[in-house]
């Protein structure tokens, strides 16, 4: 039986406390009825024998102690799901905000979900061709991976994410594919860019969007990724669809988390973020993957803007510890007008080794990748050295490396927003770059590949 109470006794930030509660459960959905009849939603954060601590999603503005009614619904926050949700746009609290009318639920699910049994996981190993050399060649994405984009304010991370969403494909397969997009506290313009771009490429009718704009309630941001992941799980594991999840911007999510923690007077961890932020982020990111015996998969690309481009900031730091690699968007490459400005050295895809090689991409892929990394790292050192000492002080080998590093940025990393390179093209450009170096420098490539692919230009010793 649903009961209503008028026993509000504390209001602080997004948190209220109600007294004299007969029965409430942890995590239960609560409805708050304001004196003017409007309804807000909240969630029980702490359930005591006669008290409940409730977090209000839409904020506590206009609430008053005497006349606000609280109704406990007896169930956790849930989402209504059916195959019809594909192509629809929802608010940050899972209500349809397009003109499509309400969703008739085939099933309802708690947005918290259960953890995937590690034994049930299937290892991600299917190569996704994004058509971007810096990703395909060096930081390969595979189906079921969670690969965030670490970026900064003013960098083209959204373009990159959109290009990936548009071009991503698994070679030789025609599987059902969908995009689930979660906008967390972004501006109208940013969100519109995503919607328009998905519409232009025809991807909107196979997308599900959850939009929480910067002006929408802050606390709602905490639930957006959970609605997104619950939807993705439904599509992937019940409807056998391959899902690409894009979440932007995780930084806003963490800030909302901090706001609630502060309102609850919790002991803060680093930079005021709550100590459980790692676990909390993991409960979102880890819902991605593949499951044995299920056809669908969830690949996640969260986007986060690093405050002051600082990757030791708790948000990128904790994300990096949970996700399977990261794509770094670099300000200095962006300044050189290189698009996509991916700094490949700190970027990493942890699952790449299972997705590349013979029968997947090309047999020389791993060797070429390692050599490109090593050579570019050396080339960057040489570039720095040249700044201090002048180019004339460099040894002949060093000069090769410097030339390599420049060419690598201009021809390998750099490509057009609509340029969709096949993995063959990417590999060939890679060899073109390596051929700038003398063959004896290619210590990480097997001899047979050098003989097969190295384009001798008379610069051997």
């Amino acid at each position, binding site marked *: 039986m649903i009961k209503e109470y008028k026993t509000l006794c504390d209001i602080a930030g997004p948190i209220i406390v109600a007294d004299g509660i007969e029965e409430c459960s942890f995590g239960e959905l609560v409805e708050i009825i304001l004196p003017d009849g409007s309804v807000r939603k909240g969630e029980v954060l702490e359930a005591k024998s006669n008290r409940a601590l409730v977090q209000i999603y839409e904020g506590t503005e206009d609430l008053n102690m005497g006349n606000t009614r609280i109704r406990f619904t007896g169930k956790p926050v849930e989402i209504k799901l059916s195959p019809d949700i594909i192509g629809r746009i929802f608010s940050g609290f899972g209500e349809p905000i397009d003109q499509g009318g309400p969703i008739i639920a085939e099933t309802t699910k708690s947005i918290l979900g259960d*953890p*995937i*049994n590690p*034994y049930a996981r299937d*290892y991600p190993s299917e190569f996704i061709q994004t058509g971007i050399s810096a990703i395909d060649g060096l930081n390969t994405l595979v189906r079921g991976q969670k690969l965030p984009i670490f970026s900064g304010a003013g960098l083209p991370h959204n373009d990159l994410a959109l290009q990936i969403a548009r071009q991503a494909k698994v070679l030789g397969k025609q599987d059902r594919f969908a995009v689930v997009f979660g906008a967390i506290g972004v501006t109208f313009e940013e969100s519109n860019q995503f919607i328009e771009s998905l519409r232009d490429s025809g991807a909107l009718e196979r997308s599900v969007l959850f939009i929480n704009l910067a002006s929408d309630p802050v606390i709602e941001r905490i639930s957006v990724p959970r609605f997104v992941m619950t939807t993705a799980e439904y599509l992937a594991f019940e409807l056998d669809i391959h899902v690409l999840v894009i979440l932007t911007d995780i930084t806003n999510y963490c800030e909302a988390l901090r706001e609630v923690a502060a309102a609850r007077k919790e002991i803060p961890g680093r930079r005021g973020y709550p100590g459980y932020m790692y*676990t909390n982020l993991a409960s979102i990111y880890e*819902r991605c993957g593949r499951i044995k015996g299920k056809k669908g998969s969830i690949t996640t690309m969260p986007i986060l803007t690093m405050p002051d481009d600082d990757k030791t900031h708790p948000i990128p730091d904790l994300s990096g510890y949970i996700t399977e690699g990261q794509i770094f968007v670099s300000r200095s490459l962006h300044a050189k007008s290189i698009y996509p400005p991916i700094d490949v050295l700190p970027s990493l895809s942890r699952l790449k080794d299972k997705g590349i090689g013979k029968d997947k991409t090309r047999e020389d892929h791993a060797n070429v990748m390692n050599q490109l990394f090593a050579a570019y790292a050396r080339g960057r050192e040489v570039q720095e050295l040249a700044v201090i000492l002048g180019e004339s002080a460099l040894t002949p080998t060093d000069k090769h490396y410097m030339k390599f590093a420049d060419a690598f940025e201009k021809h390998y990393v750099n490509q057009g927003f609509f340029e969709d390179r096949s993995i063959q093209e990417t590999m060939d450009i890679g060899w073109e770059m390596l051929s700038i170096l003398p063959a004896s420098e290619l*210590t990480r490539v097997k001899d047979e590949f050098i003989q097969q692919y190295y384009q001798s230009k008379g610069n051997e010793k």
Partner: protein
Amino acid sequence: MEYGKIVSISGPLIIAENLPDSKMYEVVRVGKEKLFGEIIEMHGKQVFIQCYEETLGLKPGEPVQLEGFPLSVQLGPGLISSIYDGIQRPLELIFDQFGSFIARGIDVPPLSSKKTWKFIPLKQKGDEVSAGDKMGYVQETPSLKHYIMVPPGIQGTIVEIKEVEATIQDTVVILRTKDEEKMEINMVQTWPVRRKRPVKHKIVPNKPFVTGQRVVDTFFPVAEGGTACVPGPFGSGKTVIQHQLAKWADADIIVYVGCGERGNEMTDVLMEFPHLKDPKTGRFLMERTVLIANTSNMPVAAREASVFSGITIAEYFRDMGYKVALMADSTSRWAEAMREISGRLEEMPGEEGYPAYLSSRIASFYERAGKVQTLADEPGSLSVIGAVSPPGGDLSEPVVQSTLRVVKVFWSLEATLAYARHFPAIHWLNSYSLYQKLADQNFEKEVDARWSKDREMAMSILQKEAELQEIVRLVGTDALSEKEKLVLLTAKSIKEDFLHQNAFDDVDTYTSPQKQFLMLHNIIYLHQLAEQYIEKGLNTHEVENFAIREKIGRVKYIPESEMERCNLADPIKESFEKWETQHKESSQ
């Protein structure tokens, strides 16, 4: 059965009342769904419980039931090749019975009580036995005898023992205790995870723990029964190193604890280990591995327990006289679990919000490692290798610092090495091992008398290189003498041809100490000869172009079975002699 009542729920922390007989650290079942929990604090009538499962939907007023025993693990045949969560629930069986997701209130026994094992006695009727003695064994895998020991605290004379096909619950031995009481013993023991298992006494580690990883064995070795930690920022390859050690380390049993880490990493182990073979026994690696997987999205309290569950299982195998190694990835997540629970308990925080007892907990965990004389008077060892994930790669944070105070080996992972894809990204100048002497003595005896000389030389070249790089950065290489340039060249060779090791290459992934010695000796020998010949007018860039250098670089890809091909001493010498003759001809 006694029932209490929930009065408050906040995340994994539950407060209950009306449980007068409860004990500290006792296991309880919470709510109607009977969720697992453990008592962690008591205040007056209130009992504080940390719940190992998601508490969503729990209500104040629901019952709490005492189980009467502390959090324990079951030890017996069937452990090997299993994968458990943090409180030893078998994930494979849960998957079979309940599907892909872990629902709540699942109660599946960790060891199969239906499967039968052939018990083969080692003792006879009339033998006097006491705690820890091996009464018999079960051939659990083709390469592993699972000994059935007298449980701790028990002593007596065997009245009945025979070869029998039995389940773990069936009686296999009957003892008559001192008080003339009959005692039936089966093949399963239960042991509380937070209490260390008894041994006769500890002994000082005296043998290196061979891992097949060059930078580890040659430069920063661990001892059997030693402790090591691997701190590093994300992406620096902690997990790959842990996996490499789990794969190739010279141990009888590996317990791998995935504590608050990625689910896919555990899947990687589960998919890969059944196909990999132990280079020594030729058996599959999975046949010596126990996995504990409490991934980051699984309940945080069970993560706190996972490390203890793992080490208790490891101790149990150590008690059989085995060489056991435990990998914990990552202890930072374990510490964070402690912090989260501590925060909910509103304890006064220490550094960075971690509880004040952080360092004592860490110390007591690592102290459970060691080489021991078991109760049956046999040597056994338990080595512990813990990964640490410091926020922002900052080594001054409390978990790293508390760990460094207790461990003997420190492998410092550096992001700069990882960016250049130099793996393992263990930095040669910042890392250290206090087992160096012990390892030297052993390797000098077993591998080559020049072992430590070569290593010291290599180390001093790397040190020197770091100093020279400073100069090069300021004034360029032209200011260096030929000998100094040679140091740079040799250092580069040590880094690329020796320290760099590709975990994903079939041959390079494991290198025996014998081959490690040859590989390093090639480089050092070339350096020594070059030093001599520089006096005779040899230039460093001529050395750089020696064809033999490329060969030295390829030694890592020569299989162990063709060891003789790894020794390049003669061709190295010939290169220099060839130069000398050419040099003489041209100068004439």
